[in-house]
């Protein structure tokens, strides 16, 4: 086994995991507090990438583009919440699934109308577009490292907000008993809108960071949406801690599994069979993990107290 490759893949796993966490954090809050299934979360991720590509094109700088993208996606999230989603909180999950499915269709088609069917690229500044030696002799792309660092910083910030601030207190209170904090005189509508906007901004951040690595294209939100749903379901809906642990776990398993599963299978299966089965099994692994977790703990690994009766 190639240890340097393994190290690189583990870092890549963390990078994917942290991106997933940024998406999952917003989604799990919306899920947990408002009891709302939002399939259009992936569309906000896509919009983050498209906004960033546009702003970077206008300003000529990725960093300024990124800084402009965050408030833009926040505002977009707030608008979507007020226009379309607000009335859905009281509905059952089926209605929410369908209405947000409609939003996905709308966003994909609107994107195709505005930006055209061909994907975009986000050019990186030179200092991010190079490799750094993480340990002597092991080069690693600076941008991926930047994603990992940003991801950890945002996770830390989010932990601080949720557990140490007034807003965080309200969020946690909202997650455990919505009606009660409404009765205590908190403007719950405003709180929901803020939380949704925050989740949108986090999704946008994930999108703008994924943009330079993957390509910015229509439908990019859907494949990652499914992964994000897997993450929050494994983590336990409404739990930020669960989302974080599950995101890292999924990121590592998916990335490391894809590169090493063929070798592992080769040891136990005839090489012909292994070569055929490996790609299928490695893309199935995280779903197997999810099925396994739910079969044992139907509420996910960290079901938050008070939610999910």
């Amino acid at each position: 086994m190639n240890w340097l490759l393994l190290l690189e893949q583990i870092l890549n796993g963390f990078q994917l995991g942290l991106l997933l966490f940024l998406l999952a954090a917003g989604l799990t809050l919306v899920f947990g507090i408002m009891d709302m299934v939002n399939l259009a979360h992936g569309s906000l991720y896509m919009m983050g990438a498209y906004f960033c590509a546009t702003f970077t094109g206008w300003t000529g700088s990725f960093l300024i583009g990124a800084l402009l993208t965050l408030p833009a996606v926040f505002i977009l999230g707030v608008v979507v919440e007020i226009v379309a989603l607000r009335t859905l909180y009281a509905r059952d999950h089926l209605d929410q699934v369908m209405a947000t499915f409609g939003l996905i269709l709308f966003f994909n088609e609107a994107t195709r109308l505005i930006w055209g069917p061909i994907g975009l690229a986000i050019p990186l500044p030179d200092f991010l577009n190079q490799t750094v030696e993480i340990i002597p002799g092991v080069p690693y792309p600076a941008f991926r490292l930047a994603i990992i660092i940003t991801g950890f910083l945002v996770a830390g910030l989010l932990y601080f907000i949720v557990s140490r601030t007034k807003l965080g207190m309200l969020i946690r209170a909202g997650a455990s008993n919505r009606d009660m904090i409404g009765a205590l005189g908190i403007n719950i509508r405003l709180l929901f809108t803020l939380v949704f906007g925050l989740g949108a901004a986090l999704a946008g951040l994930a999108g703008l960071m994924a943009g330079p690595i993957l390509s910015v294209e229509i439908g990019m939100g859907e494949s990652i949406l499914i992964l994000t749903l897997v993450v929050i379901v494994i983590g336990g809906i409404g739990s930020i801690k669960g989302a974080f642990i599950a995101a890292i776990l999924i990121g590592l398993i998916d990335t490391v599994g894809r590169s090493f599963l063929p070798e592992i299978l080769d040891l136990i299966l005839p090489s012909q069979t292994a070569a055929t089965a490996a790609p299928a099994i490695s893309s199935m692994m995280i779903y197997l993990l999810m099925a396994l977790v739910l079969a044992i703990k139907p509420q996910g690994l960290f079901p938050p107290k008070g939610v999910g009766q």
Partner: protein
Amino acid sequence: MTLSSRQLINTALLAFLALLPFFTDWVGDSFYTGLVARILILAIAALSLNLLIGYGGMVSFGHAAFVGVGAYVVGIGTFHAFEDGVDWMMNGYIQLAFALLVSAVVALTIGAISLRTRGVYFIMITMAFSQMLYFSAVGVETYGADDGLSIYSRSDMLGLIDLNDEKSLYYLIFVSLLLVLFLMHRLIGSAFGNVIRGSKSNEARMRAIGFSPYKYRLTAFVIAGTIAGYAGFLMANLNDFVSPDMMHWTRSGDLIIMILLGGMASLFGPLYGALAFLMLEELLSSIPLTIGGLHVGEYWQLIFGPLLILVVLYARNGVDSFLPGARKGS
């Protein structure tokens, strides 16, 4: 026997569908027979899903996987018959039996695990299982991976009916639809159907009077999966093609949209929904309007998406609420 006005509308629709190939013969355009055949197959799949969603309250978000399983049985059978000369794999009855058997076994496995969960978790886990099947179809190079499998010859029904004749295939599909409608009608009215519906509206009470909903739900899940597998068998023969895309989670979403468009609480709802869904697609994508050099029809989902939201928000029972005798409220 007198028919209510609603039954008259339903009967008129079925009569129209029965005579459709003759109309298209008369017009001289068989395109619509193919389109309606596709709609009817999707209606069969949506009807089976409605047993779970509409009557059982189980929002399964992976139903297209069973359609895919049934279709792949035909595709794989034909593939081996052509590549390896295994002639019995062309036999339509064997293909059909395997399509039903395999989709039933897959539904039993998925259902047994998924039904342990509730609510959002159930939605997600069924979606995850269907994605698993989707990725395994994408991963298997032998059977075409991403590109899918072309079906060079339709299932051989040993002279009883010739599926290569478009009209015979259409009538097979139409009669299948009638049978599934009848089966659903009987099922929903039976004691079994009452337990399924009762478990949706009040599970605790069902338990209190001595029913364990799990077994009943699992049975319903297997029945629905098997019927969807049958729809897949028909779909493979109609399209002469199977691909992983048939199992993608958005296809499952389409089936749910059909149920929602048609109205969940009625037997015929999914049929109306499937008709409405594909007709809307045809209509919206052929809007002859051009604004600033942009052909509006090309971006039909821009209209369809918000329309879907409006249906969810304001026309909860879809087409059903516009038919006479619709239940008010809820």
